[in-house]
């Protein structure tokens, strides 16, 4: 199957429109991808500044900077913004830029809907951010917004939060539909499913997960909306409902959601490690099956977030074993990445540094996940800083390092310029040290019993918290360096060849750097 731009009636342009309308009205996958990435980075700084407030408050025991009510708003908004505003849009941005180029298509399958998917996000986050200025303050019940904290006891702004989540959901579902239609319908002739690049495979599966679970999130916030405003009793036991029901529905969304935030990073790393090892990826087919297995298992493990809520013993056993099973396909992936590097001709440019750190540190996050999966042990770890350490290890050096690795890997392709390698390596090492300083001590804090989501703590936790805060400030400040590197790279630098990395493979490297406005006017043949 192939795809060519229609040259109908002379409407055809070869370049972007001028001025602001280029961005408002665009149907171009590169423009939309750029907007997603810029938006995501803005949200990363916005949500990150909230993390700085949190760490500043936790620098020392006692209440010094913010009051506890505002602290709760910060933890909640930090989580929501990072998950829905930073990580997810960044991957959609990468998908927009790369998928058409990787499958040999002129653009995304449904270009106008693509534009709508993007512009809904600023709209949703404008509403979410506006809750900070409403009476009663912003949502303060944690990013998981458990009922009845978010229903009976939530601030009035909860209703606005609910509609913001609805808009994000609409955006994600439309984005995912677009990704699936592009991959299934616009592949170059000869590109069979098992010849697809892994980033394409992981995004296909991620898009399936998004379409399956974002409506469930819409369902659970709708139930909240009704309980708050219309007197229903989904989560109120005095009407025959159950607050635990909230957790079931939420985590049925929430667990696949964590794979939505990591699978595209798996895909990107599966391109980067072979490129800098100058070897083909070890075990391509097993990588595909492993991602599929992880995605399917993600639907049957949700209650491992709820071991302490009092689910029946049979349920605890089922969810414990099902969760541990995920370690098998994940282990396959880690093995394959390491086997790809084994006896390769390795070099360590910035994308490779981030990718190797991804493999090691994500594995640490995976192991702490296994510890949490053990139901009897989880009774001790639940709602402690150990959990905070765990999910930051999978999200920061997992999802976010995956995004940084992808950004450095493809920046020469996007901009036509090489980025500053020295600055990029500095960015890596400062991020690497900062994030480990910030999050590794949290394991010890959690095991020693420090609960999460508190603005003050007992004195014995003081030292590790101070170390953690220093690491967090270091990591946070370092990200401004990334902004500088990207701006520098856009504005100029050494001219990038079509294929700047000698070991890289794939259709995207057959296009010039930067690629033409419409990626593949004539579909390439894939052998």
């Amino acid at each position, binding site marked *: 199957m192939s795809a060519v731009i229609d040259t109908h009636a002379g409407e055809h342009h070869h370049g972007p429109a001028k001025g602001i309308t280029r961005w408002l009205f665009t149907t171009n996958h590169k423009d939309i991808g750029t907007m997603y990435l810029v938006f995501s980075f803005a949200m990363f700084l916005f949500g990150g500044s909230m993390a700085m407030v949190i760490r500043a408050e936790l620098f020392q025991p006692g209440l010094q900077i913010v009051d506890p009510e505002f602290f709760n708003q910060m933890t909640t908004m930090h989580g929501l913004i990072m998950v829905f505003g930073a990580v997810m849009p960044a991957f959609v941005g990468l998908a927009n830029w790369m998928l058409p180029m990787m499958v040999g298509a002129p653009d995304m399958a449904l270009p106008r809907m693509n534009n*709508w998917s993007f512009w809904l996000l600023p*709209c949703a986050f404008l509403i979410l951010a506006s809750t900070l200025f409403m009476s009663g303050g912003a949502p303060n019940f944690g990013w998981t917004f458990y009922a009845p904290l978010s229903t009976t006891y939530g601030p009035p702004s909860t209703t606005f939060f609910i*509609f913001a989540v609805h*808009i994000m959901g609409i955006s994600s579902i439309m984005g995912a*539909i677009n990704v699936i239609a592009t991959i299934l319908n616009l592949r170059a002739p000869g590109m069979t499913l098992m010849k697809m690049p892994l980033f394409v495979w992981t995004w296909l599966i991620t898009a399936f997960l998004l379409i399956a679970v974002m409506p469930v999130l819409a369902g659970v916030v709708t139930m909240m909306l009704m309980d708050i405003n219309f007197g229903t009793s989904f989560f109120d036991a005095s009407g025959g409902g159950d607050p635990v029901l909230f957790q079931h*529905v939420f985590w049925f969304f929430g667990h696949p959601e964590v794979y939505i935030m990591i699978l595209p990073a798996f895909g990107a790393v599966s391109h980067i490690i072979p490129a800098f090892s100058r070897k083909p990826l070890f075990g391509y087919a097993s990588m595909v099956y492993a991602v599929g297995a992880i995605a399917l298992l993600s639907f049957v493990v949700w209650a491992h977030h709820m071991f302490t809520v009092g689910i029946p013993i049979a349920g605890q056993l089922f969810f414990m074993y099902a969760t541990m099973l995920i370690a098998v396909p994940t282990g396959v992936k880690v093995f394959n990445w390491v086997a790809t590097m084994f006896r390769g001709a390795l070099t360590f440019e910035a994308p490779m540094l981030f990718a190797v750190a991804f493999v090691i540190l994500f594995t640490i996050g995976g192991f702490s996940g296994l510890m949490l999966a053990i139901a009897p042990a989880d009774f001790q770890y639940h709602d402690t800083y150990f959990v905070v350490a765990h999910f930051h290890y999978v999200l920061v050096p997992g999802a976010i390092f995956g995004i940084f690795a992808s950004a450095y890997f493809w920046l020469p392709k996007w901009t036509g310029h090489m980025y500053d390698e020295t600055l990029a390596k500095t960015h890596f090492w400062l991020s690497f040290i900062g994030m480990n300083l910030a999050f590794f001590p949290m394991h010890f804090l959690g095991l020693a019993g420090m609960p999460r989501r508190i603005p003050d703590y007992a004195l014995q936790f003081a030292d590790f918290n101070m170390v953690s805060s220093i690491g967090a400030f270091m990591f946070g400040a370092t990200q401004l360096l990334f902004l500088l590197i990207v701006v520098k790279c856009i504005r100029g630098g050494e001219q990038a060849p079509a294929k700047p990395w000698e070991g890289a493979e794939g259709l995207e490297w057959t296009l010039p750097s930067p690629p033409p406005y419409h990626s593949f006017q004539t579909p390439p043949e894939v052998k």
Partner: protein
Amino acid sequence: MATDHTYTHEKYAYQKYYVPEQSKWPIIATVGLGLTLFGVASIMVNSSQGESTGGSWLLFLVGSLIMAYMLFGWFGNVIRESRAGLYSPQMDRSFRWGMSWFIFSEVMFFAAFFGALFYARVFAVPWLGGEGDRGSSNLLWEGFQATWPLINTPDPVAYPPAKEVIGPWGLPLVNTILLVTSSLTVTIAHHALKAGHRGKLKFWLAATIALALGFVVVQAYEYVHAYKDLNLTLESGIYGTTFFMLTGFHGAHVILGTLMLIIMLVRVMKGHFTAEQHFGFEAASWYWHFVDVVWLMLFTFVYIL
């Protein structure tokens, strides 16, 4: 143009993929949806705090008008492009994937509410009644009897009980017959379209719409009956909650599906669609079958069981 441009040559079909140039509709849609939902949220929050909701209604109305303008404009744009022959069979497949996955997302939305119903029936209510490992929650409301349908809630002051619930074999059965028949008639209309019988197509499509409207009227009557005579409301505890949310969302989807069918009838009247190319019609009929299947699930799990 009297008929849609169709492609027959396989190679030619693959060689065209229409990428529209700039479009103003998405950004208009964003502004419209944002204003509408912000307005709705403001109405809810302001009225719960006893404040004036006038400005919020204005936001909501302006947003809705923009949404309506956008829907006519955007779909009109797509229809014009389609009739100008810009869409290749490959484009058609993109639309098919899009609609299929959209319907799948709708299935998952209903799944969340069915999940809530099953959880309440199988776990939450029996536990409140003292059954099993979680029987300790019975201590909260001593003497609470777990039954389904749950008439007497644990706290009858907060959630006043209904007198009775709506049985399956009266109006709901009528509605089942209406909706299943309408699924049949829309299929007959589709076959007529494929065979090129325009008169038959118009008749059966109109019949489908009539049945759909009949369903909506009966459902509305049932709601009035539930609220006025049976005291079965959203506030009657978990039974009323799941009953109205499931049937309500289904009803909203029926209304949406009916609108789609009405627009298809208007387009048929205007001479749109050919025997080969009529995905707009097919999408509406897929949606209609989806609505029908959801109803059969509802009839089984909400009314009968």
